[in-house]
Structures are given as structure tokens and as C-alpha cells.
């Protein structure tokens, strides 16, 4: 490693050649404030447009100030990060940004999580000396994401995430000068764009310009409606992240406290999406084995690889970008929707109530799930299988609204039967988890033997695109994994061209899988938080008594009592879906 020597604020610093002043300073313990800069370390994503100019520093011998985020260190450089000139410029720049930013902080969705708010506070700004016109745009509400464009500060993080990480291409900067803003093509509504509702833009947005649709009020109303039986289901990734909202370190598992809190809030049944994840394995696994079997018998029409379909962002992505491959993904519904279908049919029958009198609420690490539960095919006579989908953040908000002291709660269990789950369903929350869970069950069904080594560690990791071959008793099964839609595109393009051969591919729209979902507590670009959740997921799996989906006794009972066989007629009706060509839905009205 070639190094250079420089002086930052009077301190001799050695830095790697090619490194930016910002990184060199941070390593030396000098924190230069930033705003537009956004990095997902390990996920090859860096947004440094050098646009906000908050990180400017004085470099001796240079005529103007330099943005620390984009300026490379040089031998003998002398840098001042808080000279009067720098402090005045930085302050003026932030005052300017604030002069074109609504000051409704008290009721803003990002209040407390807003990086601009933090910055203004840090710089001690008490008044804004510039008054003038403020940008006004049409608000854009989609089923998942709200764009409050007045608040956009043109940091371009969402644009970089949408285009580079996700390759979705829904957002980019439009217009010039003071009117410049990040928007969809022709400034249309998000729903008419190529947006997949993955919400990574919401995760990246430092201010309140992008946020999720908040449905806590509707949920509170349902809970307080005596006519309604309100059921809650919680996704696997929620339990390893919720604690962060209550001061626990990242990676703390709070499953028991979460169940207790949900009960305090007043849900009639506290169930677990993990149950439906086990059910997904039964259906998807059977579908996979069926296709493999047909393939091995020489059926030329069989579609391989099978693609997982649990992630709604991913489903939207392939419906928009790969309309020619709509028969390739598994037809199995996502765990959220399987749960909804079972709850409003099987469980409603058991309780002897009408589906209209049952309200199913899901707690998801995701914002795309809000869109998914509103899809027409998941409704019966207009009544959705899942009524409301809340994010992890909204659940935290709900807990706080109900004055529950989360940190002192005793751990409780989920309700049975739809709260029973195995370790296989827990790992759905991390990239590679679905395919590993499927492998655990498929192995035993395919070979007829008991799987001794449950941990397929070769499928784990945070590398964007991974692949592994698993030995099914002499039959090699090729598996591919991608997380982040950009990685998915890379893999899918290869599949489309026939360059790679897999039996199955797992895709998750968000980096890291659901643990890095856009509904999770804001990580502000600190991906080590996601890594800690990742470790926690596998720890939770390890602690489970049962670790294979087909061993879940209540799943067996469900098939015996109600569904019959996996991929059977009833399952087909309740647990499977079909896909639509959305490529033409991306409307362009010039």
C-alpha cells in the first residue's frame, strides 16, 4: 500500500494513496460533517456527487475550498477542517439549504432521524438569515412510499441507490437551477414509473423527502374496534432489528419482548410470519423438486432455474424488467400473503368468524410489503388477505405510542398454532436463507434420507452474487443467490442468455436481504449494523429446537386438517399466485 503524508488540523496523518481527505480524516479521528455523502461499505455503493458542499475544507495553496468527500489526499497536503473560512462557508451552505427546506420538523416523518436536523444542531444554527422562495412540488403518494419533494435537498443518494445499487432507474435529477430536484421521468407518479417499491431510497434519504406510508393510525382503530378480530404476524428480520429503536445494540434478538409488546398493544392473536415461511418451503420446495424431476425425465419445457418469489420488490422488478420470464419464478406466494390466506380462511373458519371481521396486520422489515398486500389478486371480494403492513419502524412507534416500556418487558411466546416455527423460517430474513431453508427440506424429500449437517454455510455470506453446488446424494444441485436488485439483474441477464445453469436462484431486493430492508431502523449507511443483524439471524436459527420446515408440527397438522398435499388443489388455490407483465405499465406521457 502506497501511503502519503499530510497534515490535517495540525496533526500529522498517514493515509493511503488515492484515499479521500474525508476518509483519511475520519481514520485519524477527525470527523468532518457530511450530508450528501453516502456509503454502503461492502456493498460497492458510494454516493459522492460533491453536491452539498458541507464537507468543504481548506487546503493550503488551493484557491477555493475543497470537498473532503471527493478530494484525494496528496503528499505534503496541509488541510484545515475548521478554520474561520471553512466554518463560515459550511455554516452559510447549511443556512442556504435550510432556507429552501420546510421547517415542519415537529411533524416530519424523519424527525429524530433527519441528518439535516442533526447537522443544523451540530453547527449551532439558530436562525436562517436568508429568506426567499421555497421549492414547491406536487406530493406523490404511492401504496408504499411517500415523496414529499419539497424536502428534497438534491443529495442524490436515492438516485444513486435506485440506479446503481438497484438498477431500477425510477429516480433521477430533473430540471435546472433552483427547480432542480430528484424525480421520476416526466415527474409522473411513482406508481407509473419503473419503481419496485423496494424503498432503499427511503433508507438512504437523509431528510423527510422520502418516507414510508404510515398506517399505525388505521391499526389502532382496528384494535379498538370490538367487531374486529385483529391478528398480527411478524417477519423474521424484525426481531433482530427492533431492539435498535429502544437503545439495544445492533444484533440484539428481541423476539420474546416483541411478542409481549404486541400483546400489550392489544392484538387478539400474536402470530409469526415464520410459520408461513415454513409453509412457503413446503410449497416452493415441492415445486422445485417437481421441476427438477421433470427436467431429469427429459422434459424440455420445464423452466429452470426456479426463482424465489417471497420478496415483493423483486417480484415487481421482474414483472417490469423480465416480462419474457414470467413463467420462471416459483408461483408460491410470499410468506406474508400465505399467512394472510391461511389466517382469513383456515383460522377464520376455526374461529367461526367472517373474513370481513378479521383484520390481519403484518410487521415487516419492508416497505414493498405495503404495496404487495394491496395487490388485487390478494383480495377476496375487495377484502385483502393482509389488511395492513407496518414496518419495523412503525411497530417501534406503536410501542412508544402505547406507553410500553419495551426494555423492561418479560419475554413471551407467540400464540399457537400460527406462531410455531423452525430455524429454517428464521433465516428467511437474511440473504441466502430461503435457499438454505429450501435445501434442508428438499434434501430430505429428494433423497429420503435425514440431513445430518443442517448448516449449509456455503450458501451464507454478504457477497452480492453467490453460488454453490449442493450434493443431493450424488445429484449436484446448483444454486445461485443475489441480493440487491442490481446483482439480481446481473444474474438474471446471464440466465436469460443461457450463460449459467442453476436449479434455483434466491433473490432479495435489499442488500443483505430482509435484515437490510427499507422498513428497518435507519442505519444511515452504516452497513455494519446490517452485518450484526445477519449474525443474529443465524444465532436465532441455531437456538431453535426444530430447524427444518417440514418438521414444524403445526405445518403437518395444517396439511392434514386442511390443505391436503403441498402443491395440491387447495394449496394451489390459496398459496400460489401468478405474475403480470408490468413493462408497459411504465407510462410515459410526454
Amino acid at each position, binding site marked *: 500500500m502506497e501511503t502519503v503524508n499530510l497534515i490535517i488540523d495540525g496533526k500529522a496523518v498517514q493515509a493511503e494513496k488515492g484515499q479521500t481527505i474525508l476518509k483519511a480524516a475520519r481514520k485519524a479521528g477527525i470527523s468532518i460533517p457530511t450530508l450528501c455523502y453516502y456509503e454502503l461499505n461492502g456493498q460497492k455503493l458510494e454516493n459522492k*456527487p*460533491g*453536491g*452539498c*458542499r*458541507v464537507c*468543504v475544507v481548506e487546503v493550503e495553496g488551493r484557491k*477555493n*475550498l475543497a*470537498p473532503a468527500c*471527493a*478530494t*484525494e489526499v496528496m503528499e505534503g497536503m496541509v488541510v484545515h477542517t475548521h478554520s474561520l*473560512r471553512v466554518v*463560515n*462557508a459550511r455554516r*452559510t*451552505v447549511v443556512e*442556504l*439549504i435550510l*432556507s*429552501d427546506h420546510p421547517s415542519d420538523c415537529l411533524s416530519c416523518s424523519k424527525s429524530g432521524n433527519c441528518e439535516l436536523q442533526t447537522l443544523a444542531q451540530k453547527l449551532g444554527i439558530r436562525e436562517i*438569515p*436568508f429568506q*426567499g*422562495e421555497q421549492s414547491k412540488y406536487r406530493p406523490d403518494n404511492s401504496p408504499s412510499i411517500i415523496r414529499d419533494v419539497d424536502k428534497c*435537498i*438534491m443529495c442524490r443518494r436515492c438516485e444513486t441507490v435506485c440506479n446503481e445499487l438497484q438498477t431500477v432507474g425510477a429516480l*433521477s*435529477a430533473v*430540471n*435546472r*437551477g*433552483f*427547480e*432542480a*430536484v430528484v424525480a421520476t421521468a416526466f415527474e409522473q407518479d411513482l406508481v407509473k414509473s419503473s419503481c419496485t417499491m423496494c424503498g432503499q431510497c427511503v433508507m438512504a434519504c437523509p431528510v423527510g423527502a422520502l418516507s414510508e406510508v404510515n398506517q399505525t393510525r388505521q391499526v389502532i382503530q382496528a384494535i379498538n374496534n370490538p367487531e374486529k378480530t385483529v391478528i398480527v404476524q411478524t417477519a423474521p428480520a424484525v426481531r433482530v432489528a427492533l431492539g435498535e429503536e429502544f437503545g439495544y445494540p445492533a444484533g440484539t434478538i428481541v423476539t420474546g419482548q416483541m411478542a409481549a409488546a404486541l400483546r400489550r398493544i392489544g392484538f387478539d392473536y400474536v402470530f409469526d410470519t415464520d410459520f408461513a415461511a415454513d409453509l412457503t418451503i413446503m410449497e416452493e420446495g415441492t415445486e422445485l423438486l417437481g421441476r427438477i424431476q421433470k427436467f431429469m425425465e427429459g422434459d424440455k419445457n420445464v423452466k429452470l432455474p426456479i426463482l424465489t418469489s417471497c420478496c415483493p420488490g423483486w417480484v415487481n422488478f421482474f414483472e417490469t424488467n423480465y416480462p419474457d420470464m414470467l413463467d420462471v419464478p416459483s408461483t408460491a406466494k410470499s410468506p406474508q400473503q400465505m399467512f394472510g390466506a391461511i389466517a382469513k380462511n383456515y383460522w377464520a373458519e376455526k374461529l367461526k368468524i367472517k373474513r370481513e371481521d378479521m383484520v390481519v396486520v403484518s410487521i415487516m422489515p419492508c416497505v414493498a410489503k405495503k404495496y404487495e398486500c394491496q395487490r388485487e389478486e390478494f383480495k377476496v371480494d375487495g377484502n385483502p388477505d393482509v389488511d395492513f403492513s407496518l414496518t419495523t419502524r412503525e411497530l417501534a412507534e406503536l410501542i412508544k405510542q402505547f406507553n410500553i416500556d419495551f426494555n423492561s418487558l418479560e419475554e413471551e411466546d407467540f400464540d399457537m398454532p400460527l406462531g410455531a416455527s423452525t430455524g429454517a423460517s428464521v433465516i428467511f430474513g437474511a440473504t441466502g436463507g430461503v435457499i438454505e431453508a429450501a435445501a434442508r427440506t428438499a434434501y430430505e424429500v429428494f433423497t429420503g434420507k435425514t440431513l445430518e449437517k443442517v448448516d449449509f454455510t456455503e450458501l451464507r455470506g454478504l457477497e452480492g452474487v453467490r453460488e454453490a453446488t449442493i450434493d443431493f446424494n450424488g445429484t449436484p444441485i446448483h444454486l445461485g443467490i443475489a441480493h440487491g436488485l442490481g446483482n439480481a439483474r446481473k444474474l438474471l441477464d446471464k440466465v436469460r442468455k443461457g450463460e449459467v445453469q442453476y436449479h434455483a436462484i434466491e433473490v432479495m431486493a435489499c442488500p443483505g436481504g430482509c435484515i437490510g430492508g427499507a422498513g428497518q431502523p435507519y442505519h444511515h449507511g452504516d452497513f455494519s449494523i446490517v452485518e450484526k443483524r445477519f449474525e443474529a439471524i443465524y444465532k436465532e436459527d441455531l437456538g431453535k429446537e426444530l430447524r427444518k420446515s417440514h418438521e414444524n408440527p403445526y405445518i403437518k397438522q395444517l396439511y392434514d386438517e386442511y390443505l391436503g398435499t403441498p402443491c395440491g388443489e387447495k394449496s394451489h388455490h390459496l398459496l400460489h399466485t401468478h405474475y403480470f407483465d408490468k413493462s408497459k405499465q411504465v407510462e410515459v406521457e410526454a
Partner: protein
Amino acid sequence: MAKYKMHILVCGGTGCTASQSVEIADRLKSNLLDKGLDKEVQVILTGCFGFCEKGPIVKIMPDNTFYTEVKPEDAQEIIEEHIIKGRKVARLLYTDPEKKEHVADAKHMGFYKKQLRIALRNCGFIDPENIGEYIACDGYAAVAKCLTEMTPQQVIDEIKLSGLRGRGGGGFPTGMKWEIASKNHADQKYVVCNADEGDPGAFMDRSILEGDPHSIIEAMTINGYAIGATKGLVYIRAEYPLAIHRLQVAIAQAREYGVLGENLFGTDFSFDIELRYGAGAFVCGEETALIHSMEGKRGEPTFKPPFPAQSGYLQKPTNVNNVETYANIPIIILKGANWFNKIGTEKSKGTKVFALAGQINNVGLIEVPMGITLREVIYEIGGGIKGGRQFKAVQTGGPSGGCLTEKHLDTPIDYDNLIAAGSMMGSGGMVVMDETSCMVAIAKFYLEFTCEESCGKCSPCRIGNKRMLEILDKITKGNGTMEDLENLKNLAGVIKDTALCGLGQTSPNPILSTLTNFWDEYVEHVQDKKCRAGACKSLMQYVIDQSVCVGCTACARNCPVNAIQGEKKTPHTINTELCIKCGTCIEKCKFNAISIQ
């Protein structure tokens, strides 16, 4: 081919074309045909002559007669009188504004006397759509010389020695730029001609492309050879249809003649050029923004480094030069660096083309040696201030430049002197202002342009310039405070210090230079609510002189907003709150009792 005895050059630049110069050429041709002179006299549509104030221009050669403001109807007279009878058409000759005499020979016109045309050497002289004429004027001899007699390094050394600096605004040494690009190795490199001329009023690049397109093709080929690039791109704004057409014709001819394409001049060097069209965004003149626009991305600048020479178009080493810079290259190669570097000042060599505009007699395109003074340009070439009024300021460098005053008139014009004086060369806009120009309003005008054209990427330029514009608006409306002036100063300084690209960093220059040179005028606007130039409408007040008014009621009856009160036969008064300053009362008053103060 029979030799023509006389040539009639008709300006085919955009300006004169708009005033029917093509029609004039057609009429001249048909008149010649009628008289059986079409084999003896040739009519040629050339590029711009520069003297746009008096267009359309028709010039007769070899006797150098310069006809101005010619109309299609004049064609017959020119043929019958001048061509047949040898009598100059006096009424169409240029009249010297001072001596009030007709000037028969263009060489004696004040407008041309002090000019030195290097970049514009062929403009208004050759037929830009005829490669033969370019070749006859030593065209393609420079590239032939480079390819057959010089190594790429020798070419770079020659350009370095010439002292040529970028004519697009920044003034970066061209040879050095080429050298950096040549030293970055890659499988593909690019040469880009920046023809995205955007300064308000500047049109030298357009004129060169319209008048001498082959010089750009030749220069780009030389550039390609010097840095090891085989592909050239011209980024040209789509609003320049004539320039695009001439360039397309020239490229096709160059390919046909084999001076563009494979194995040029029997060597193994190949080079070709493609056009890329811009949508006319000012910021796309900035080289990184230009490259992004060519790549199909949003046209906005990115931080340098990496410089285009390291990672430019499609991430390949790219050399970007502007049209005027390129126009100098062939002649430097032919006449030698030591010829070129004797022209100009110590650090600014050669000439610069300026678009002379504003309150000046001779508006047009001029090319002068570096080191000429503003006084010479304004009073000798420009023919002085219109209507004999008092000179007040001259703005150079367009929206990135500043306003210079009387005290700068004898400063030799070059890159460094202009920057030292608080302005810059820019692409060569030069707007002359007299006492009727309000400097606050001028600063506001340029800032309006910058606000309109800012890409919006960085906060200082996007929001800061908007806030400065709002403050200036407040001041010109008479609502400014001294605190506003302080904020303005601070903002201008911070924007200069923090904006992302060159355009943003220079955008406060019109304000900073007027704050420095015309501080009193700002203070007058703020404290006395007065605009001495009478340009800020909101600061004007209509007043009825009580000693003159006879109370005829004409003003009151005609005031559209009933702002004038008074009894019949007693002096009237104007309610300034209601007055909309439309001027009707002044028009109606028979006693000159109403004035603007």
C-alpha cells in the same frame, strides 16, 4: 476552369442570413446571368465578416469594396453600376461615423484596422462549403506536415512553445492539456471539440464553424495525432443549424478527399469525426458536464480530478478544446510557434475573438491581439459610445466575468490582467455600458442568467444564487437594507469559494465586481432609494412641479389608476402609492410640469 475576374462575397453567417443574405446572393447570380457575366464574376456565400451591426455585408474583390446593409433590391444596382460600369454604389458604402465619409476600401475601416485575424482568418473570405478554397488557403497543409514530418511529441512541443491557452474561458495552456492526455495510455482516446457556446451574446464559435469548418476538422485531426486518439467528437448545440450543416458538409468533403478517415497522407494514422448534439444547456460548456451529456447522462459537472485527460468520455482519456482554440492550431503548425508567440503579452499569446455588444457604435465580432487595451477596442474598433454618451463600464467574460470601469480602460487585455481586475476572459463576450446602465440591474441580469442555467447540483449555486437574485431584486425595488448588502457580500464570497464547478465558482463575479467598483450605486439604491441611471423603474417617482402645473386636469383624466388628485385650476399631485409609472401623464401634460425623479 476559367478564372473569375471578380468575386462577390456575400456574408452567409447566421446574422446576415436572417437579413436575407441568401436572397441577395441569388439575385446577384441571376443578374449576372442576365448580363452574361456569370462566367466572369463569381458569387460566394462566405462565413461571417464580423461587422454584424451593418449586415448584410457584400464585399467585392479584388478591389475590397465593402457594402453594408445591403437589401435584395440592391443586387441589380451592384451588378449594373459596380460590376459593369466600375462605379461604386456610394449609398451602400460604409460611412465613417466620425469623418462622415464613405470608406471605399475595407482596409481603411476603423473596425478592421486594429484587428488581427488569425482564428477568423478564413471567415468571410472563403466559401465554407468548398474544401478546395480551404485547401487553396493552405488548408490541410498543417495536418500533412504533422503526420509526415513531425512526431506527436513534436506537435505537442510546438503547441506548448506557442503559448496558446484555452479560448473557452479558463485559459488552461493547450499544449500542456494535450501532453497530459498523451501520457495517459488507453486502448481508445477521444478528442472533443466543445462547440456548446453559451455565453449570452457570444457567437465566435458559431462564426468559425459557419465560416471555416475545415480548420476545426484539421485541428482536431492534429490533436488526435498528438495524443494518440483516432476518434473525434464535436459537441455542438442543436440551436446552431447552419453551423451543423456546414460542419456536416465539411466532414463529408474531408472524407471524400481522404483528409479524414483511414491512413491519412499515406501514414498509418486514422482519424474520424462524429457530431453530438447538445440541447443548449449553458452548463454543458463545462467539460465534465459536456462529457456526461455526450454519454447520454444528465448534463452536470463532476468533481475534478479525475480530469477528462485521465478519465473522460466513456471513461477514456479525452481532450476537450473549444472551437476558437482549435481554429488557431493549423496556422501555428504552419507558421511556427515562434511566429505565434511573438503576438500578444508575456503570458497570453496570440489573439482573442470578442463579441462586441452594448452601447457602442460598431457591434460585431472582432479579433484582436492580446495586450490591446479596452480603450482601443471600444473607441477605435468599436467606434465609441452610441449617441456620444459617457462610457461607464464594460462587462467581459459573460456571466462568469465582471464589470470593469474607466480605470481599467488602459489595461492590456489578457487572461491574467482581466482576472486581476476582477473579471475574466471567458469565451469573449464584451458588453459596453454607458451612463444609462444601472450596475445593480446589470449584476441582476447576469445572475438571472446564471440562476436559469445552473444545473442545480451543488447547494451554493442552486440556492445561493437564487438568494442573491432575491436580494438584488429587493434592492432594485427599493426595499434593500444595508444588512442585505452584507449578506450579498458574504454569499458571493462563499459561493465563489464552495461551488462545485468553474461556472458556479465564477457566477458571483458580476456581483463581486460591481460591489467593488460601484459600491456607491448599491448604497444609493439602498439608502436613498435612487437609481442614478434611471433604469430601476420601482425607484422612479413621478412628480408634478407645483409651480408649473395650471390644473388643466388632463393628467388626472387620463391616469389609468386614478393616482392624480387636484381641484381644477389648482396644481395637481400624484399619489405615488397608486402610481404605476406608465408615463401617460407626462405624455398628456402640455406644460411639461411632470418629471421623473
